[in-house]
């Protein structure tokens, strides 16, 4: 359990830095989605299934969708 937590903590930290370092928002969406899933797995490993359930839907579906739709909007406006 400790090993799993350690792996997931490292993954979350790495994906967080990766999301910031990815300057193109269209690519950042994918890193943010992966971060959201890693966070959900970490929350489950930290014995927080209630939080993991919130995070998995928000991180894997809703937040990436909002970013993609916002990007689609600004690209259409010729940005």
């Amino acid at each position, binding site marked *: 359990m400790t090993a799993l937590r350690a792996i997931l903590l490292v993954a979350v930290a790495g994906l967080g830095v990766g999301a910031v370092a990815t300057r193109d928002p269209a690519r950042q969406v994918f890193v943010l989605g992966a971060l959201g899933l890693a966070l959900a797995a970490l929350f489950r490993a930290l014995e927080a299934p209630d*939080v993991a359930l919130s995070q998995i839907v928000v991180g894997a579906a809703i937040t990436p969708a909002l970013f993609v739709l916002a990007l689609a909007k600004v690209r259409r406006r010729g940005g």
Partner: protein
Amino acid sequence: MTALAYGTVAVLLVAGLLGVVTTRNLIHLVGCLAVAQSSTYVLLLAVGLRSGGRAPVATGAPPPTAFVDPVVQALALTDVVVGAVVTALLLALAIQAHKRFRTLDPRDMRSLRG
């Protein structure tokens, strides 16, 4: 384990805020803010952890003292959901800013400057 958990919290917060202050794109900024925000969830759950503790859901006849802290979990679970809607609000602001200034680069938004 302690250093790793709190180290992850600090890395997420600092990386996210560094992204916010140096970004050239408002949508990227919202993504960086989401990274900084996720540090609070990791911190809350790490603080509430007990070695050998189980998820605070009673199944059958468990020794209830072996639960991890349910209070921080209640805080984190609502904040994850509220955070998603706040992200939507910030993205809507970015869309409006783009409509007005025709750019997402905060440097080019002259009238926003103080």
